[in-house]
């Protein structure tokens, strides 16, 4: 699988996690152009935490405190980060 295809799969999984963790309140197009920032989706702090915990569970990673805020600001940035972590075999 190419890197781009792999990232698209990750993005698609992230969208699914977001929809599930928000119990369907937030729905994004599967392949939208110009992904909105997560702030712009209007998730409250509990919603955001639920999403981050669900991402940890989905991908078997842990968000360390030194992960830059930009990584958590949009789904594409998050997907790139997760992709890099998984390719390193890390458990961040």
């Amino acid at each position, binding site marked *: 699988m190419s890197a781009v295809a792999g990232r698209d799969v990750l993005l698609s999984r992230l969208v699914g996690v977001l929809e599930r963790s928000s119990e369907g309140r937030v*729905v994004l197009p599967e392949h939208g152009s110009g992904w*909105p920032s997560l*702030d712009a989706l*209007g998730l409250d*702090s509990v919603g*955001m*935490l639920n999403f981050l915990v669900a991402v*940890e569970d989905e991908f078997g990673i842990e968000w360390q*405190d030194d992960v830059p805020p930009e990584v958590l600001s949009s789904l594409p940035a998050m997907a790139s980060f997760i992709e890099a972590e998984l390719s390193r075999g890390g458990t961040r």
Partner: protein
Amino acid sequence: MSALAGQPSEMAASMRFAERIGENLREACHGFAARPAMRMGAEEWSYQELGAGVERFRDWLLAETTEGPILLVPRNEPSSVAMVFGAIDSGRAPLLADPAWTPVELAEVVRRSAARALVLRKGSAVPAGFVLRAENGGYQLLTAEAGAEPSAVALREDTAFGRFTSGTTGFPRCLQFSDAAALAAARGWAEAARLSPGDRVLCLATLNNGLCFNTSLLPVFLSGGLLAFHAGRVLPSSLEKSLIAVDATVFVAFPFAYDLLVKRPAGVPVGPALRLAVSSAAPLAGSTREGWRQATGRSICDYYGVAEVGPCTFNDGSVPDSVGRPLAGVSFTITDEAGLELPAGETGLIRIRTRSMASDYLDREGPPFAANLDEEGRYVSRDIGMLDATGHLVLKGRRGRMINVAGRKIDPVEVEAVVRQVPGVNDVFVCGDESPGRTILAAYVESESVTREQLVAFCVARLAAYKVPQDFVIVPRLPRSSTGKFSAPGIRALQQEGTTCLP
């Protein structure tokens, strides 16, 4: 103008109040000297350093301002604690803002409270129309370009600081607290929680919040304990590291943090030193309460407090479903709507007598504070409860429309006022919808054209994130009664349909 303002008269004014927070804190900093007072990650402040920090910020504010109040936006970090107590000691009456507020909200709070200055951490978003006047360490002091508006209401002579309540008037209201009230609250809690110099208190609540102020600031410092802040995100994996690093004896957090920890597959990450887990502000889920008890062998101290009156109970967990017994100096009376006292075991309105009560609001945009009091000076809460035969309080409900989302009280009127400004919105009704595990802020919007995206974008720019509705139900016509008011059964039907409109 504040009676505490004005350079030469300040000391004289301060002497009029025998018991000052500053004096008590100075005594603690002197007495506990080299002991650790605060920790955040690798950063640690001794009591001596806390005392010096308080003095430094106090002198800075005295040099840079001429009168209070000032709106202060603290963060959960040691320097902000020093700033808060330095501001209190300066007599400038800091009003402790919610760090989640947007710049738009901060500017409005400054206007309504007639704050003379705004103190922010460097790097924070600055409200439009404010200019930088001075800097100190990581903080900046700003004033409104147009100058401070004339005070609509006098700051009381005995006001030491202000904290905000979400109010019921469409905007947060500032409560004025005296030194005596804060000290009574701190001593009551420290005594009930048996805080000592050996305690290490890890607090997740923000400094402006009653849960932190009442259980983790003055009570810890007057007891000589260590106050620790969590340096990372409120994620279970990160919380675990803090709990272990601090080896906390006391953990203070909102219910959602307990929810996250209890659901953690690896188990609840607390060490053997933990003797007290404190929660408040919102009901704990039964599964969380039981999960914590099974994992730690201890109950969560789910206590009862009210923004206007401070902490009211301490809960040792001995009576299931109770929020505990009153703190020293606090008493409850349960009455019917007419004020007639009800016997133990009967449910009614909770009236509270306490020395830790606020003295007034700092605005005149809603009912006066005295309207909350009965003829005997008791605070008439909006909470419904029952006292059992042993004096334990059991909460049964709440009057009014206030919405509690994860421990944050939200006035739906405030959110409705913002949503109504969105072009294309005819009207809106905001309420809390019960979802498995938590309450969701929902907006039922009457519009034929607006989209969820437009509503979210508008709200995100004007409201703190926790006030942005998570559910938007958009319908051409909201159900109304024959008098034109929203129809409760009709809204409930919309809730049951779950017809959330998505982009």
